[in-house]
């Protein structure tokens, strides 16, 4: 399973990057989201995946009696998921405004602020 998951993570990264390299603003955001998902899964995988043993201490016990899934990457990913929601919504709104102001969603026509004269 890990093997397949690693390939899939690669696929997420590749497609995310590909979408980011397009000129359309919408595709840029979709690429960003895919990349974020890939990163989350990567952290999850590298924290080693365990089946059926959530990091929850059983009732009537103060410690883990058995093997358990690593809670640290889970905590990291949880925050990452929520933060990326904030990032995405901000990016989406930014696109919307940019589109309204510049009247194009072609990234190549939005580079005038960056031009070095």
């Amino acid at each position, binding site marked *: 399973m890990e093997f397949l998951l690693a390939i899939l993570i690669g696929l997420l990264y590749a497609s995310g990057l590909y979408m980011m390299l397009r000129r359309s603003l919408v595709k840029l955001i979709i690429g960003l989201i895919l990349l974020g998902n890939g990163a989350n899964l990567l952290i999850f995988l590298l924290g080693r995946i365990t089946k059926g043993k*959530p990091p*929850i201490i059983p009732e009537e016990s103060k410690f883990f009696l058995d093997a358990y899934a690593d809670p640290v990457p889970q905590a990291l990913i*949880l925050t990452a998921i*929520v933060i990326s*929601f*904030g990032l995405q*919504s901000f990016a*989406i*709104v930014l696109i*919307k405004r940019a589109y309204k102001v510049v009247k194009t969603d072609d990234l190549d026509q939005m580079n005038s602020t960056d031009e070095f004269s």
Partner: protein
Amino acid sequence: MKTIILRTASNYLLPLLLLFSIFILLRGHYLPGGGFVGGLIASIAFVLHAFANGLENTKNLIKMHPGFLMPVGLLVAFLAGVSPALISNLPFMTGIWFPEPLAVIGMVGSALFFDIGVYLVVIGVSLTIIFTITESA
């Protein structure tokens, strides 16, 4: 999307989902759940209601701007953080608890209040974003 069925259902779903979100929030310390998930579920409940009944109705229902939940939540979380320093002269963010556990919830302590703060902020943030975008779309 304003079908009769959805509208009727959402009227019942909203309190149920809210209740569920609070349940998820409170049990977070012992079982899967917590402020983040709880807050998201609550926001989804409101968004669903807005889809079925229109944004205006939902806003009338909430009465206040969801944005106000953000500072309130931050304040709750912050107070939960400093409470040990104020009450027991312990360092910032040390957990303190009431001595006896409550039914259903379990031990009540500063961590729970912190989680409630998170819950409020998450609701405030997601609803502010969604409502703002819906209004200006």
